[in-house]
């Protein structure tokens, strides 16, 4: 591809993005006076990333440039890029939302996401840098049968990336729709086209820089918001939380979550309950299972592993994880203030009214802090946070597409299809670009096709497969002498099947019977509630009347939803899997599927002995321990 064509295509893609932003401008729901502002902020951020891509495109000449930015990323830069890859819209908007709606339990998520990096730092990052080249399958193929392990490794990478990518696309589509008012299909297409332009032209160089820019913007925006929230309490932690406990809207939220047991509690007790565990997580074992999937799954996510090939030495790989942990940890501490701040300033009920999952908590807080829906600064803050959220989705999707494309082009095409027949450097880059285009187009199609899918199921699946298949295989091939091809294949198969299988029979799926039962319950209680609210409407107390009006509006909504659910599910009695009710009670399969994955690698390795794997062990053993000078020499 000549530079000229690249420049023109980049210009074309920018026009598409600009048009998309114009559509947003034309169709935006609220704040008509400030559409120009939303448009300007989006355009500025897109322009900056486009310029970076344009500069990066000139530097992408070899497969190594395309997949790993030529190994020329510093530990500090890579740390920001890892943070950019990791702080997906689901995690930053989702967790702030969970904290705003459920208090303490939401914050427990933040902790798990940070601790996950300890596994990456201690066990995975440095050996991967010392042994791998571009992909996860490189590590597996090092001392095992290259063809077979590349195939299973690449397939697993594609599976994990597809689950994660679909979740990001669906979540992103809904989010962009809510934030700027364009329809779902258009927003998925915008995310896809923009992401493709970064990856296709700029490869890993552009993807890395887009991630760095996005992470810096995200952290800055959060620092400003948290500063403005916290300064009202003189930066005192107990005073800030006291404000939450005293807030009547927070107290009302806890009362509605607890139901009957809340009747005997005082207002302050209700407020205090928001700071205590148990409002979101009900089954303890589920919590532990989720925790395991988080701390072991992160170390098996291909787009995170791939980031360690962009630095030159194990020392830089280590530095990058420590930087990433400082950034991610600092950011998740901020989510505590974002979430509680939103609960206090905007109110849990108002947040849930815009989006039931609470995803709009942070953007709404930004608007409030800036001066509210009718102020220039308030709308600037809203536009800024929305634009950062949009950039976030695009950047995370870019990382995922790059991981899948490298699995297809580097592992399946160069490593398996053309095994023994060397591919020229130009041919490798061409293969990578074609694979990117295919994966990108597929991701847009999947995103549109998966409209309305449960995002939590997909993210859970990605983490479960990564923790149960990828993690045991990578860990054991690095640390266990007897590990071999048989073990890798068995581990990948059993881990994936166990994780996917258990998720498919878990309560995560929709069970029409339960949905319909819940809908009928709402309808049965309708009459009684209407009478009660009707009586309250006649009251002379203005507060009681306002509350009754609100209750009635909520009831109308619930009844409409119940009717819709009953119509939607009709005569269906079983889930997608043909089950009337879940076979297991747990939402997250980790606690079973992770040990199964490990067991499969052990048994597979012992059943099928492989001399080559054991002969090469000494090399792997030395390299993963003292890769220092050896890896320096490979970088020349």
């Amino acid at each position, binding site marked *: 591809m000549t530079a000229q064509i690249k420049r023109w295509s980049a210009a074309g893609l920018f026009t598409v993005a600009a048009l998309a932003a114009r559509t947003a401008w034309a169709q935006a729901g609220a704040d008509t006076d400030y559409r120009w502002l939303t448009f300007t902020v989006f355009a500025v951020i897109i322009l900056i990333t486009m310029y970076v891509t344009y500069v990066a495109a000139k530097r992408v000449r070899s497969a190594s440039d395309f997949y790993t930015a030529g190994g020329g990323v510093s530990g500090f830069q890579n740390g920001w890029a890892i943070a950019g890859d990791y702080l997906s819209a689901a995690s930053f908007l989702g967790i702030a939302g969970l904290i705003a709606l459920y208090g*303490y*339990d939401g*914050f*427990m998520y933040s*902790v*798990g996401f*940070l*601790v996950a*990096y*300890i*596994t990456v*730092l*201690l*066990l995975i990052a440095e050996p991967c840098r010392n042994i791998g*080249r571009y992909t996860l399958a490189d590590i597996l193929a090092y001392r095992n049968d290259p063809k077979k392990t590349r195939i299973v490794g690449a397939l697993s990478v594609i599976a994990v990336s597809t689950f994660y990518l679909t979740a990001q696309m669906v979540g992103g589509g809904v989010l962009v729709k809510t934030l700027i008012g364009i329809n779902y299909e258009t927003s998925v297409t915008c995310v896809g086209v923009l992401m493709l332009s970064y990856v296709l032209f700029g490869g890993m160089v552009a993807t890395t820089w887009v991630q760095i820019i996005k992470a810096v913007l995200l952290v800055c925006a959060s620092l400003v918001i948290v500063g403005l929230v916290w300064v009202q309490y003189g930066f005192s*932690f*107990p*005073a800030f*939380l*006291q404000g*939450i*406990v005293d807030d009547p809207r927070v107290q009302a939220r806890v009362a509605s979550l607890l139901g009957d047991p809340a009747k005997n509690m005082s207002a302050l007790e209700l407020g*205090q309950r928001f*700071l*205590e*565990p*148990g409002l979101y*997580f009900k089954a*303890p074992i589920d*919590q*532990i299972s*989720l*925790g395991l999937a988080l*701390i072991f799954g992160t170390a098996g996510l291909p787009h995170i592993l791939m980031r360690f090939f962009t630095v030159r030495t194990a*020392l830089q790989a*280590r*530095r990058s*994880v*420590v930087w990433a*942990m*400082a950034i991610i*940890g600092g950011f*998740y*501490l901020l989510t505590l203030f974002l979430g509680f701040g939103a609960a206090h300033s905007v109110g849990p009920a108002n947040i849930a009214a815009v989006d039931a999952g609470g995803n709009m908590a942070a953007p709404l807080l930004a608007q409030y802090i800036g001066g509210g829906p009718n102020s220039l600064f308030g709308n600037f803050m809203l536009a800024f946070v929305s634009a950062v959220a949009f950039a976030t989705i695009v950047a995370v999707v870019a990382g995922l597409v790059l991981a899948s494309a490298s699995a297809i082009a580097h592992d399946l095409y160069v490593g398996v299809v053309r095994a023994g027949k060397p591919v020229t450097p130009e041919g490798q880059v061409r293969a990578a670009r074609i694979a990117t285009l295919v994966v990108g187009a597929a991701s847009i199609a999947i995103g549109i096709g998966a409209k309305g899918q449960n995002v939590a199921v997909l993210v859970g699946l990605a983490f479960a497969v990564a923790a149960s298949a990828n993690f045991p295989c990578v860990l054991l091939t690095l640390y266990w002498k007897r590990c071999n091809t048989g073990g890798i294949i068995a581990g990948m198969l059993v881990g994936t099947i166990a994780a996917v299988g258990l998720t498919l029979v878990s309560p995560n799926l929709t069970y029409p019977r339960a949905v319909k039962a819940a809908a009928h319950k709402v309808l049965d209680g309708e009459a009684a509630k209407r009478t009660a609210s009707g009586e309250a409407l006649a009251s002379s107390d203005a507060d009681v009347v306002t509350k009754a009006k609100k209750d009635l509006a909520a009831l109308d909504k619930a009844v409409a939803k119940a009717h819709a659910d009953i119509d939607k599910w009709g005569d269906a009695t079983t889930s997608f899997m043909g089950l009337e009710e879940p076979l297991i009670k747990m939402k997250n399969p980790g606690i079973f599927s992770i040990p199964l994955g490990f067991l499969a690698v052990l048994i597979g390795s012992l059943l099928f002995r492989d001399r080559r794997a054991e002969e*090469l062990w*000494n*090399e792997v*053993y*030395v390299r993963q*321990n*003292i*890769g*220092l*000078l*050896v890896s320096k*020499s*490979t970088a*020349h």
Partner: protein
Amino acid sequence: MTTPATVDWDAIIKDPRFQSLHRRKTSFLWGLMAVSVVYFLMLPIGAAYFQDLFDVRVWGVVNVGLLFALSEFVVTLGIAILYSRKASSDFDVVAAEISADFAKRGATPSKE
């Protein structure tokens, strides 16, 4: 990639410095890993089975549970910094010594 045949991996493994490095590294890494996993799991376990303890208020409305969750951040980052320091000042130095030594002996890693 270096060509494996040009480096005498077995000789490196037999070197007592390598064996001692590997021993110290293994116990340090897996020890820290065990501490992190156990400390992390104490959070969901505590929240689920020791809720009364987590609810005790110690600093205004701030309760044990919140402080424990915040301590996870401190402990996790502390472990990261501890490992990073140890690796840079100890493991990397010994590893560099061994590599340099074997490079000098003629077992030069080949270029790409």
